C-alpha cells in the first residue's frame, strides 16, 4: 500500500489538472500539434487551414486540433502529477479528495459553454 500512495497522488493530480488544462487549451486554441488528415501530415503547434491553404480551398485541408489539445493538457498534467507524486504524504492529506471529481465536472460545464456557438447557428 505504501508504493500505491505516490501513484494515488499522481492519479488525483493528473485527472484534475488535465481537465483544467484541457479547457484552457480549448479556449486559447493551444494545440501541441495539428493534424491534417486529408494531407496525411502533422505540424507542431496550432495551424489553421487558412495558414496552409488558400481560405477558399480550406475545405481541402481540414485541420484537427483535438489530439493536440489533449496532448497539451496531458503534458502539463503529467508534470503536475509527477510533482504531486514526489510530495511527502503528509502534505497531500490536507487536500480534499473531492477535487478529483469536482474540477472535471466544472471543466465539462466549461466545455459546454465553449461549445455553445454551435447551437446558435
Amino acid at each position, binding site marked *: 500500500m505504501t508504493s*500505491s500512495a505516490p501513484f494515488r497522488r499522481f*492519479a488525483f493530480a493528473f*485527472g484534475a489538472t488535465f481537465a483544467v488544462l*484541457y479547457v484552457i487549451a480549448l479556449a486559447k486554441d493551444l494545440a501541441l500539434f495539428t493534424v491534417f*488528415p486529408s494531407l496525411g501530415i502533422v505540424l507542431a503547434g496550432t495551424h489553421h487551414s487558412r495558414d496552409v491553404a488558400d481560405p477558399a480551398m480550406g*475545405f481541402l485541408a481540414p485541420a484537427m486540433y483535438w489530439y493536440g489539445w*489533449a496532448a497539451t493538457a496531458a503534458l502539463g*498534467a503529467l508534470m503536475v502529477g509527477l510533482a504531486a507524486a514526489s510530495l511527502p504524504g503528509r502534505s497531500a492529506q490536507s487536500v480534499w*479528495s473531492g477535487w478529483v471529481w469536482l474540477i472535471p465536472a466544472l471543466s465539462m460545464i466549461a*466545455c459546454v459553454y465553449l461549445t455553445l456557438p454551435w447551437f446558435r447557428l
Partner: protein
Amino acid sequence: MVAVALLGAITHQTLAAWGSAGARPGSFFGRFRSIPSASFANAVVVLYAISTLLGGTLYLYFRVDVRPELEHAGHWHALGFFDLKEHFAAIGLALLPAYWVCWRRPLASEPVQTRTALTSILAFIIWWGFLTGHVANNIMGFGS
C-alpha cells in the same frame, strides 16, 4: 462490441454505487450490489482505453468524409454534440487512473462519495459518447 461491453460494465457499477447499502437482498438494487463493483474497474479502464483508441482512429475518417457533409447539410447541433463528445472523452480518459485507484486501492479514510462521483461522471461520458456517436452516424445514413 467494445462500446456495448463498456456501457454494460459502467452502468452496472454506477447503479450499484448509487444503490442503498440497505437494499433488500432480493430487490433490483440488492441483486446489483451483490456483485462486487470493484471487479468492474479493470474492465472499465481497459474497455474505455480501447474505445478511445478506436474512436480516435475513426475520428480521422469522420473529419474528412462525414463532418463536411454534416456542415453542408446544416446539422450544427449534431456537430456541437459531437464536439462535446470529444471533449468529454478526453477528460474521462485522464480520470481513469484516479477512478482505478478509488476502486482498486481504496483508503479507509476516503469518502465513498469520491468514487461514486467519479464513476457517475465516467458513466455520463460513456453514455453521451455512445448516444452522440450513434446520432452523428445515423443522421444522414452514414455507415449504412
